[in-house]
């Protein structure tokens, strides 16, 4: 028992986690809407026009947060997959399953907005640069994990197979992150890092970081909403003989 008196293990059961997730979603959703609104305001009305790139640079206010989320979400998905494999915990696999589509979407957006920035700035929609190529591979990894899961009927085998694929693929995340240092890429280096001063004006960094926080809150809200769907869909397996709802199953146990 923890010192706070809350039995956290209680929430490791899907039946207990389902209503808890439901109560958390509105807060994360509200935070997401607020932060994104502030981020857009600062990004479009306060941040100045860039001297060299003109207003095309404003694309980074969605591009950088989307690219970061694509990598963060992959790592978090892999961690849940690892916990699931290690502890044989169903809710962990459900979390991994719920994160994958959002991660895939942000990977697509990072590539799409990057190409929208590349055309006016580099003069090319796409180049086979280490950063761009490794990010494209990340998109294929997400798609592969989602397809592998949906191709296996046995849920336990689907969980384990997609978890192994997610864990093996995590090696690509540091490759994406360090690609701009390891290889001579057309893609520029990090604009913001923990060890060095930002290479952009203060308001530009502010807009980007606020959008980043907003995308985090969005990802948490949408993942929690999806994991609730997954819980209900899975608990309604034909083994129970009738279409059992979560409260019914909780009572039966």
């Amino acid at each position, binding site marked *: 028992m923890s010192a706070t008196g809350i039995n956290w293990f209680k929430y490791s059961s899907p039946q207990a986690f389902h209503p808890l997730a439901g109560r958390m979603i509105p807060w994360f959703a509200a935070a997401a809407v607020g932060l994104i609104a502030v981020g857009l305001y600062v990004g479009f009305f306060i941040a100045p026009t860039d001297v060299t790139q003109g207003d095309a640079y*404003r694309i980074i206010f*969605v591009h950088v947060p989307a690219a970061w989320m694509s990598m963060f979400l992959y790592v978090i998905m892999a961690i849940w997959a690892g916990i699931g494999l290690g502890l044989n915990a169903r809710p962990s696999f459900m979390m991994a399953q719920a994160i994958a589509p959002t991660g895939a*979407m942000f990977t697509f*957006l990072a590539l*799409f907005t990057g190409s929208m*920035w590349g055309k006016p700035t580099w003069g090319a929609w796409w180049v086979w640069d280490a950063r761009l190529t490794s990010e494209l591979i990340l998109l294929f990894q997400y798609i592969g994990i989602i397809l592998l899961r949906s191709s296996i009927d046995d849920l336990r085998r689907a969980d384990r197979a997609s978890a192994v694929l997610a864990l093996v693929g995590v090696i690509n995340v540091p490759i994406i992150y360090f690609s701009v240092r390891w290889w001579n890429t057309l893609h520029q280096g990090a604009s913001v890092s923990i060890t060095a001063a930002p290479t952009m004006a203060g308001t530009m960094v502010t807009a980007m970081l606020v959008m980043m926080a907003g995308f985090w809150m969005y990802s948490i809200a949408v993942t929690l909403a999806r994991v*609730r769907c997954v819980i209900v869909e899975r608990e309604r397996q034909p083994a129970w003989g009738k*279409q059992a709802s979560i*409260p019914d199953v909780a009572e039966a146990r």
Partner: protein
Amino acid sequence: MQWGSLAEFFAMGGYGLYVWSSFGATALCMGGEVLAVWRRHAAAGNRDGL
């Protein structure tokens, strides 16, 4: 604020097409995902709201 008029804002210094495609695609994807999860939620038969 660096925008003299609404037209200037939408033009984005000549990069309007690229800037608005990026933000538009992002809005469509995120909005579409919320809608998809909402419908899945309803189809799954959750009794309470999202």
